């Protein structure tokens, strides 16, 4: 048949292995999709999810308190009972509260920036916006944190600025507030909060900006046409439609804060966050089961958070 076709000139003949492969994939697009997904499936499915499951499994083992040996012969909830001891619950509570404050604050700060970038910035200004948001990501995370430590230190630039403005009393008043205050910003929860806010901000701005950009302008016209003041248009149309972006951003800021162990170690108090607890339990303390149980906490919290967000209709506009 192909010979006859070749003679008629209807079918263009191509020879070679590449041509044959191309034709094969054209006939079986499913195979092509499978091959494209295979590396990701191997990585996510086996290496990533597999090790996650192994980790979860660890949390159901218990450590022998005398010998310090992990008993792998039976599954037990003993480690979770240990997790619920007051000092551990304190760590969880502190971390969740920090993550929530960082998330809310970065959403509030990021939204107007993202809004202006999505609605008004064009051409050159848009490039500048992307550069401004992404530039901090080019620098090493550790360098940024140490830089912040210097900024926030008692001898740092922030203190100096407050001094020049004759506002040292304000800073002192803030630092004298119990819990969030301290000797200086660099060793207070306020400092930890500020550094988290700075480091995760791009992860909040970009999804919100993408979400706002996807809102067609004629919806804003329609809202205004139907009698909505700009304020009403914001709350009834723009915000609900941008909400998936806010949620996406908050997943980043919230989960990154929940798991981070470096920032609170460099800037902040001596009280542990979840990440630090995991770090010390799997390291010096050698209590792998408890470290594993600690890592389960952020996973569970994120699960609850996403379920609540879904129930609140945050993904309806997707």
């Amino acid at each position, binding site marked *: 048949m192909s010979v006859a076709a070749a003679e008629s000139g209807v079918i263009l003949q191509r020879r070679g292995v590449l041509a044959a492969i191309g034709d094969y994939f054209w006939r079986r697009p499913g195979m092509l999709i499978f091959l494209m997904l295979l590396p990701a499936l191997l990585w996510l499915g086996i290496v990533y999810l597999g090790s996650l499951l192994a980790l979860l499994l660890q949390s159901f083992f218990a450590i022998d308190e005398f010998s310090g040996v992990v008993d792998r012969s039976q599954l037990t909830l003993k480690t979770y009972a240990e997790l619920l001891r007051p000092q551990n619950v304190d760590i969880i509570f502190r971390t969740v509260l920090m993550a929530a404050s960082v998330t809310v604050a970065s959403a509030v700060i990021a939204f107007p920036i993202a809004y202006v970038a999505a609605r008004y910035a064009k051409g050159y200004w848009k490039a500048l916006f992307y550069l401004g948001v992404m530039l901090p990501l080019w620098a090493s995370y550790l360098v940024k944190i140490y830089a912040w430590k210097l900024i926030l230190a008692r001898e740092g630039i922030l203190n100096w600025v407050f001094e020049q403005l004759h506002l040292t009393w304000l800073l002192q008043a803030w630092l004298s507030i119990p819990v969030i205050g301290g000797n200086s910003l660099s060793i207070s929860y306020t400092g930890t909060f500020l550094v988290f806010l700075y480091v995760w901000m791009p992860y909040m701005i970009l999804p919100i900006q993408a979400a706002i950009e996807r809102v067609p302008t004629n919806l804003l016209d329609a809202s205004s046409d139907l009698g*909505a003041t700009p304020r009403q248009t914001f709350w009834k149309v723009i915000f609900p439609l941008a909400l998936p972006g806010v949620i996406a951003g908050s997943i980043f800021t919230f989960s990154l804060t929940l798991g981070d162990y470096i920032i609170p170690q460099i800037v902040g108090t001596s009280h542990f966050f979840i990440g630090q607890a995991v770090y010390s339990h799997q390291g010096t303390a050698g209590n792998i089961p408890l470290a594993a149980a600690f890592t389960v906490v952020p996973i569970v919290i994120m699960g609850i958070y996403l379920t609540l967000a879904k129930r609140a209709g945050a993904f309806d506009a997707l």
Partner: protein
Amino acid sequence: MTAAVSLQKVSRHFGLVKALDEVDLEVQPGEFFAMLGPSGSGKTTCLRLIAGFEQPNAGQIRIFGDAVEGVPPYRRNVNTVFQDYALFPHMNVIENVAFSMMLRKVPREQRLREAEAALEMVKLGGYGARRPGQLSGGQRQRVALARAIVNKPKVLLLDEPLGALDLKLREQMQEELKVLQRSLGITFIFVTHDQGEALSMANRVAVFSEGRVMQVGTPEDIYRRPNSRFVADFVGSSNVVSPDFVSSITGERRWGSLRPESIHVVKSSADGVSRLTGTVRSRSYQGATTRLGIDLNGTVIQAVVPSSDDVAAEGDRVTLGFAKDALHLMESEG
């Protein structure tokens, strides 16, 4: 009587582009008014100026006598049906329709009742719980319409509302819109690039070209008595004939328009040559009628004749005939 909408020397520029250039228009209350023109002719800009989405660079717009300069869209009792409907994707159908009442804090029960009534008016009763994404194009169009009329605005603006619908649905919606307009008694201003739609629906039509209004009149005026080559050309596929041709018949050197359907075509005998004898160059069958392209010494004239067995074929010699008043005179040469 106060005009529903009046524009006086209204201009709107975008940079160097004059989207609208000193336009004067008056739309009467209760009228079904069409703004017709090719894309980029300024008709949509005109609509957006009336709605308040754009502000004119010069001139004055009045709605029922009130100057609306600087009045934002949300304080104008004018509603719009958008070209691509602009339904809120995060709300269901009834919430979309009740949106304006929700803003005005109408009690929930009352606004749901009124929204349902508006949906019934566009034959979508019972669809309230669906999402816009679950509706067909025609249904979305009706929701957009219900949302715009639920407040009984003084003026309803429609921006190519039927553009995205297929032919059959479009014809059905044209009828329904006419009936709706009559029963509501609201002034409708309708933007379209489809002359058939404008002529069949509107009481009066304004023809736009390059930011200017070329002619305003009843559909019959526009169709039968175009005042310019542009209008004759754009509204229906009329023959625009040159001053030379016109002067050979009437003696006046002016451009003329000759409707294809007002021309009789007779097969001519072998050598009977007159000024109106030519050769059929093209022939397309259109059902009840057949369109012929006839070459008269270099001028191609379109004629539409009833389809029958003895319609001239391509290459035939034919002679054209038309009543003298079928030749409508337009602007003079120049």
